[in-house]
């Protein structure tokens, strides 16, 4: 971990995730999403059709999740040339996206962020391996007319 990674402010952490989500969508989907107003959540927000969870250990523990509607995932699958659009494909993609965005964040957070294999769940299901957060940070965004969000549930 470098000195700058150790002293990232919440605003800087937000900027990191905005940049990483924008980069992912720009690279894979051809355009960046529009980011909406972030919020602090005191309960688990309602999950959209498919949610990918990246469990995190190390100096920060908890998880980071990406929750997305099926229509958005189908649109991304189209962009990458994938014909399979069923729920299995959507769950696979959202897990891969959550893993990619969180893993990319190690460039900024260093060893504070030790990532683990991703989990995925359909709406209404929550992975039994994870603990629902008492406080989390929700970053909503819109792409291709569809709303999705990143949820950061980490604590030192």
């Amino acid at each position, binding site marked *: 971990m470098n000195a700058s990674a150790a002293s990232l402010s919440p605003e800087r952490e937000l900027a990191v995730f905005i940049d990483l989500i924008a980069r992912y969508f720009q*690279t894979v989907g051809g355009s960046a999403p529009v980011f909406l107003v972030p919020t602090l959540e005191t309960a688990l927000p309602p999950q959209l059709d498919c949610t990918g969870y990246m469990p995190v250990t190390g100096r920060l523990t908890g998880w980071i999740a990406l929750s997305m509607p099926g229509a958005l995932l189908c649109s991304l699958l189209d962009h990458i040339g994938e014909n399979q659009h069923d729920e299995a494909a959507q769950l696979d993609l959202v897990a891969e996206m959550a893993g990619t965005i969180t893993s990319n964040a190690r460039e900024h957070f260093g060893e504070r962020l030790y990532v683990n294999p991703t989990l995925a769940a359909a709406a209404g299901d929550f992975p039994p391996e994870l603990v629902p957060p008492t406080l989390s940070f929700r970053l909503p965004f819109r792409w291709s007319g569809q709303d999705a969000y990143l949820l950061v549930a980490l604590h030192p």
Partner: protein
Amino acid sequence: MKLLIVDDSLIMRRAIERCVSTGRFGEVRVATNGRLAVEEFARFKPDVVTMDITMPEMDGLTAVERILRANPKANILVVSALADKATAVEAIKRGASGFLLKPITVESIQAALDDILED
């Protein structure tokens, strides 16, 4: 030429396969974790491997080490989202031929494979 794609994501495995389906590789096989990659490498003897890192059962860096212990000339391109320099350095230290950061594009993976196979 033969290619082994190692990734726990079905969508990623198929995306990589589409990226390289330009006639260069006559045979492509896949593995879904590091342990299966080590086993498949021994059977398939590919010319090049694309290897994810964060996978269940056995991670990609351990698989790189085990494959190279038995096959010192193996060509392995690590394809990972882990963006810190320490991870890339560790992959090369363990013997990987290259490191490509996810998310990938057709151009980025073709160029990375070109670099490895030209060497």
